[in-house]
């Protein structure tokens, strides 16, 4: 396997852009990544585009206004992990020698779905009796609270931290901090969750340019290296299942730590999939940042906040930065690239050398999740 570098990274501010058509949401990120990378667009040999709700030919539609079609475009879908799946496929295509320079796009425009709760999986027997995504995570939260004594106030501190970080990020959908009282008092969505325990819906696009290690020096003096990119799907369980444990994340994390030789203690900065407040705590545990049941202690210690030992979701995470589903994985990677380059401004994790991104999603009955993608980058 050849070494692979990220040499370009760009995204727009996540938000609600109903007035933009899909392609116009997407191409500025692509243009930004190409320019950041210092490549000529004609050097891009292939494009991997992740989108969950974009409909057919998402990548081609984004590339068309830039005159960049005419190469293989592979549109990848894996619910919340769509963008990260595209990144992983592009990374391996270069590592294995197929291409030298590849573009990755993650994009979704959720405002085109008309608002309200995102549609669940069609034909899902749990959705058919009333399960929604917030309710699924609310059940995970309630069980976790029951088993480990987590209080709703403690749960709410996750959102307070997310919004505190997001306030430092000009690319975040929400850039206003919130108080514990505001989180506790927000209108209920799926108990114990109020509105501020749930990520917003929004529109977003992010893009990255990847290249083979042996050509990276032509474009940059500051490559960010890809140590590994793991993708897996959830195991189907028909009986009792411990929903306080993130099966798919735990298994995926084990695989990437083994593959890369990186251990949880080596990670300097991480973006994890906090679509709901409980998720960040569960993923601390599944990613090995702390032991089972001790996630809140880790949060409370400040270790995962700006200036801490292992800052998590410096971008604000999904709760504050926003969660344009198929774009999320790519947006996480853009953030970590910026962190490792030292370009993250007020939210910079000082001296970060190893970064991790994690996204997982796609509610589907009987599985922890449809997909989970974990990536480790380093300088």
């Amino acid at each position, binding site marked *: 396997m050849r070494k692979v570098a990220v040499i370009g990274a760009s995204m727009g501010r996540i938000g609600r852009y109903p007035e933009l058509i899909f392609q116009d949401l997407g191409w500025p990120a692509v243009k930004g990544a190409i320019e950041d990378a210092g490549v000529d667009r004609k050097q891009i040999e292939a494009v991997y585009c992740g989108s969950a709700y974009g409909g057919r030919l998402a990548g081609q539609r984004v590339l068309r206004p830039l005159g960049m079609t005419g190469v293989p475009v592979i549109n990848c879908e894996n619910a919340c992990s769509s963008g990260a799946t595209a990144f992983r496929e592009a990374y391996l295509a270069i590592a294995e020698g197929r291409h030298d320079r590849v573009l990755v796009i993650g994009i979704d425009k959720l405002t085109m779905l008309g608002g*309200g*709760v995102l*549609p*669940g999986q069609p034909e899902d*027997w*749990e959705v*058919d*009796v*009333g*399960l*929604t995504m*917030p*309710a699924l995570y*609310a*059940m*995970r939260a*309630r*069980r976790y609270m*029951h088993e480990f004594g987590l209080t709703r106030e403690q749960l709410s501190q996750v959102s307070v931290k997310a919004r505190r970080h997001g306030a430092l990020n000009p690319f975040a959908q929400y850039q206003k901090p919130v108080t514990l009282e505001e989180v506790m008092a927000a*209108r*209920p*969505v*799926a*108990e*114990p*969750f109020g509105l501020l325990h749930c990520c917003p819906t929004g529109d977003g696009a992010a893009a990255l340019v990847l290249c083979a290690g042996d050509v990276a020096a032509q474009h940059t003096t500051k490559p960010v290296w890809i140590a590994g990119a793991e993708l897996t799907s959830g195991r*189907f369980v*028909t*009986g*009792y*299942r411990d*929903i306080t444990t993130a099966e798919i994340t735990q298994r995926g994390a084990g695989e990437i730590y083994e593959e890369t030789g990186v251990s949880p203690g080596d990670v300097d900065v991480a973006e994890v999939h906090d679509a709901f407040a409980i998720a960040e705590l569960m993923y601390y545990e599944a990613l090995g940042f702390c032991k089972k049941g001790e996630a809140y202690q880790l949060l409370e210690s400040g270790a995962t906040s700006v200036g801490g030992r292992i800052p998590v979701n410096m971008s604000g995470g999904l709760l504050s930065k926003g969660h344009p589903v198929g774009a999320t994985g790519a947006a996480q990677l853009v953030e970590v690239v910026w962190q490792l380059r030292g370009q993250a401004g007020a939210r910079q994790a000082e001296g970060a050398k190893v970064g991790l991104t994690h996204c997982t999603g796609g509610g589907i*009955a009987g599985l922890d999740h449809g997909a989970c993608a974990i990536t480790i980058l380093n300088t």
Partner: protein
Amino acid sequence: MSAEVVEPRYALAGSIGADEAGEPRLMGGLCAGCGAKVFPKPKICSSCWSTEQKDVALATRGRLYSFSVVHAARKGWPSPYAIAYVDLEDGVRVCAPLEDGVANPPPLDAPVELIVGTLRTDADGVAVLSHRFKPVTEAR
């Protein structure tokens, strides 16, 4: 005894049966190949790939594994409502509405039992029924 009897409409087709006494039962699949009991009844066993799946009445009692009171519901669904995971005594986990869960939320692990009730009303005004669970009040 009129010609206007409306067939009950169920959220999950084939999921509700009845025992000898006429009491409702939640129906799952029993694999002829490996004995796995699964809800809802699959067309193929995910363990042994046997396509011989028999209807089986599942346990009517179980424990409340977790639940949530849903306020942000999908279009056409009355809210708030309580949705739960119930672990049946025979090893099957079922996602189901929790009867009276909004007004009287029970503790987790509480014993619950099966009832059948109205889930929501279809666009054409017909009630859609489903399995539901309610806390067990009497001793067993």
